């Protein structure tokens, strides 16, 4: 977040540039906010704005825009009321703190606010839209989860203790504010608070000026690597935090709870499709497994499910992290679906054109694995592409097992361009559009025509005798250029 800081703050001040028309006492607003802040506003107001934008004051759960809107409101209000000079800007709470306060108030009063804080409902909508128009040929991660180890029934703990669930959901990353307002906090939030404080300790020694010797240090065991923690938490949900000290058993969930959590998350994913929430929850789930040194089939299935969900959402970074872990877990023969994920690995390396790693995968494959349908499919796709046999490749593309299609879709456009320039160079004088549709794995003539037009090649299409034809000779150079451009950029996220 902080990396975006400099950039967004500029745009922020631009919006701030046109406050609600102020009474004649305030000078008329100049076009640029930055300039304005320097020129006209009192020193104290400018300091206040600076503090509001300072990275050390940002609060993770509050989007910057929200803070900016608030800030704008505060200042324009005071300008209208002619209180610019009277307010003690140095002591006025920052806009983000005000927002937190406002949020905490209704949260404590009513039991129903979701974990969302303006962000989540939005992404929920978006993902729902996406999921409806995803191609039918792809399997959803939720299908796989349930067919493999999911049961559909309302779990007893859900009925028994619904409060527990909600209580956890209203947590905000920054407990300090909430505690100030409400004056109460569970032991868990205390722990988070301590965590956060600790995080600032390294960067800003002055932050904890009241407690110079940081008593929280006493609670850190002398040796972090003492061995597995045994968790005592019963919460199903937990937000993810990167550990900066030894884990506290009170916030770590033991295996039986984690198992319930997984079922809970699977259902939730199926119902709500909220990726940012699910990803966060899975990360904390993985963290709890790690700190307790749980390495069982359950661990494998957690990583598998997370990997599939990440794949479905195109989150290659998270997907890669899971793959790396799965590779280590599979090497210990804990069960799971090693072939399925080997196949993904192969497809992924086709995408990144990583020959070195591809060679390593090939070297690791056993004859049994090579006979597995998913692995075989991936290997065939690989060799078809290696020999530029687009005919074979697109047949395989239309018949991809598991969730491989999500990976294939990442480079299918590139391979289509390759095939297109291939065809353009060798067929004369033209070919029917139908031929492309069939050879390049399109679902209809419309789709293939759209692909050609999207590339900007509509001028090479010609209708004759009731058929659409592509003028191959003329289109050659054009598609060559597009092909070369497509092969140039393969960005690699995460690592394997």
């Amino acid at each position: 977040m902080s990396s975006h800081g400099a950039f967004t703050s500029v745009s922020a001040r631009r919006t701030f540039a046109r406050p609600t028309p102020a009474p004649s006492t305030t000078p008329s607003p100049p076009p640029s906010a930055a300039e304005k802040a320097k020129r006209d506003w009192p020193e104290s107001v400018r300091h206040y704005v600076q503090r509001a934008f300072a990275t050390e004051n940002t609060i993770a759960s509050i989007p910057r825009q929200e803070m900016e809107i608030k800030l704008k409101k505060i200042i324009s209000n005071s300008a209208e009321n002619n209180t610019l000079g009277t307010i003690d800007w140095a002591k006025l709470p920052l806009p983000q703190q005000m927002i937190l306060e406002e949020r905490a108030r209704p949260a404590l009063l009513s039991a129903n606010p979701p974990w969302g804080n303006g962000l989540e409902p939005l992404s929920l909508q978006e993902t729902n839209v996406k999921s409806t128009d995803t191609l039918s040929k792809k399997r959803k991660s939720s299908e796989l989860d349930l067919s493999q180890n999911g049961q559909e029934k309302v779990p007893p703990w859900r009925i028994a203790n619904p409060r527990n669930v909600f209580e956890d959901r209203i947590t905000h990353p920054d407990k300090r504010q909430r505690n100030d307002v409400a004056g109460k906090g569970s032991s868990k939030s205390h722990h988070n608070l301590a965590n956060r404080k600790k995080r600032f300790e390294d960067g800003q020694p002055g932050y904890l000026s009241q407690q110079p010797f940081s008593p929280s240090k006493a609670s850190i065991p002398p040796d972090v690597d003492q061995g597995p923690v045994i968790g005592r938490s019963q919460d199903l949900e937990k937000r993810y935090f990167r550990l900066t000290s030894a884990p506290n058993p009170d916030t770590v969930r033991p295996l039986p709870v984690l198992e319930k959590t997984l079922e809970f998350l699977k259902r939730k994913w199926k119902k709500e499709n909220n990726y940012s929430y699910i990803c966060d929850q899975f990360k904390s789930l993985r963290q709890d497994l790690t700190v307790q040194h749980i390495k069982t089939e359950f661990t494998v299935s957690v990583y598998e499910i997370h990997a599939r969900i990440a794949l479905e959402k195109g989150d290659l970074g998270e997907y890669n992290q899971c793959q790396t872990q799965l590779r280590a877990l599979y090497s210990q023969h804990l069960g799971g679906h090693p072939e399925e994920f080997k196949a993904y690995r192969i497809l992924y390396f086709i995408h990144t054109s990583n020959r070195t790693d591809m060679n390593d995968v090939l070297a690791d494959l056993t004859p049994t694995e090579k006979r597995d349908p998913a692995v075989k499919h991936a290997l065939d796709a690989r060799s078809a592409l290696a020999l530029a046999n687009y005919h074979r490749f697109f047949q395989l593309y239309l018949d991809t097992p598991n969730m491989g299609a999500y990976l294939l879709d990442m480079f299918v456009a590139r391979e289509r361009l390759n095939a297109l320039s291939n065809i353009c160079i060798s067929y004369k004088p033209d070919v029917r559009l139908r031929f492309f549709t069939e050879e390049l794995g399109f679902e209809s003539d419309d789709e293939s025509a759209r692909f050609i037009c999207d590339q900007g090649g509509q001028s090479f299409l010609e209708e004759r005798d009731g058929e659409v034809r592509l003028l191959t000779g003329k289109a050659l150079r054009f598609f060559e250029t597009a092909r070369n451009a497509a092969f140039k950029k393969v960005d690699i996220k995460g690592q394997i």
Partner: protein
Amino acid sequence: MEVLCREYWHANQEGSGPLLAATISPIAPPNYLNRLDAIYGDTNAASISRDISYSLTKTANAAIQYPNPEINSWTEIYSAYWYAIGAILAAEHPTTKPDWTKVYEAWKDVANTVIKGYSGGVLEAWTLPVLYTAGKHLRAFAIKADENARASGGDTSFNAGGLQEDIAGDFGKNEKLEDAARVINRMFTLCISDRAPLEESRKWGLYYTTNLLFKTYFKLNSIGLSKNILRALSASKTDMPTLEAFPRSHIVTFKYYVGVIQFLEEDYAQAEENLTSAWHMCHRSATRNIELILTYLIPTLLLTRQQLPSSRLLSPYPSLGSLFAPLTLAIRIGSLSAFDTALAEGEHEFVKRRIYLTLERGRDICLRNLLRKVYLAGDLDEEGKRNTRIYVKDFAAAIRLGESGASGEGMDVEMDGSAGENNDEVECLVANMIYKNLMKGYISRERGIVVLSKNGAFPGTGI
């Protein structure tokens, strides 16, 4: 101790780096098989450094002034060496379980004292072979130690920090070799950062240490790191002696590795240049090295010049022969099924050598040869010109013929070659030939024919 010290002074008198390097060799020379035992038995841990320093002084021809940094340095080196010998002898003892980790650690001390000798400016550039010996054996012991650890240790360890979110950390078990790579990297830095005039510069050790690093990185499967080294080398190119001025053995190894790196990056033109020059410069009797060079040069030439190795070339190297002969034959006769069989049978070996993905592309050449035969089988007209219009179905029949007997699946071409619809894959293959400029002409899809160029339909094959 006197043995060791006499060797030392002798080497100094001769000014011979190799002789000096031999004094810290962990392997006994053939003419003095119990050299290590003799040195080790000559003193004990309590008096080792006093003994060495005393003997070094005593065996000197000239009077030595004190304090003498050179004597101090060598006392440190030889003390570390003495401990290392102890560990080696223990490891090689037939009745005990060898502990190569201990040997590695002991030898690392030797390497570090040597590095210290150079960085302190005590050891001169002519003694560089000492650095080489230290580095070379460090790598060897590290590999042994890792093998040792792999054999004894079973499962993957947990994240040491305990603070990461994930279960397993590094699961590559090359702990010592990775450590060794760091030490060797320091040796490299030692050489590249020396600013002394060229005659007495450690820059002369650059290619040896580079090669040692390459070897280590290749073994660690992190070939990407080699590029950092190459970058560092090309950055200091201006104040370095030219490559030609270095010992031939350094050049050959360097060119080989650079060639292989380029080969892996699919920069075949550069790879061809470097590997060819390594091949020409390699010592005739260094069979193993020639084999290694050819392992990459043969696939390279297959792609860059569509050249196949002759049996005369392969005959002195039976292992290369068995590696490449089946594939070569298949390409020569244009048999796709033989090619696929050979590739599948050799897959394990090819993948291990990282040449599989390159050899795989030889199928294009194989196919080209087959299609060329179809063309040559065509009739001549009255003027003696060959028919340049060939039915796709004829190509399909030829391909189908090659495929028969091999696995049932494969081409979706009908046996009689009459069907038009099912020749799409054949058309695709022909299109590829044209695209890759292995064949000149175009496909007329409506008529189901391939129109070949009247001159040079198969470039580079004399037709």
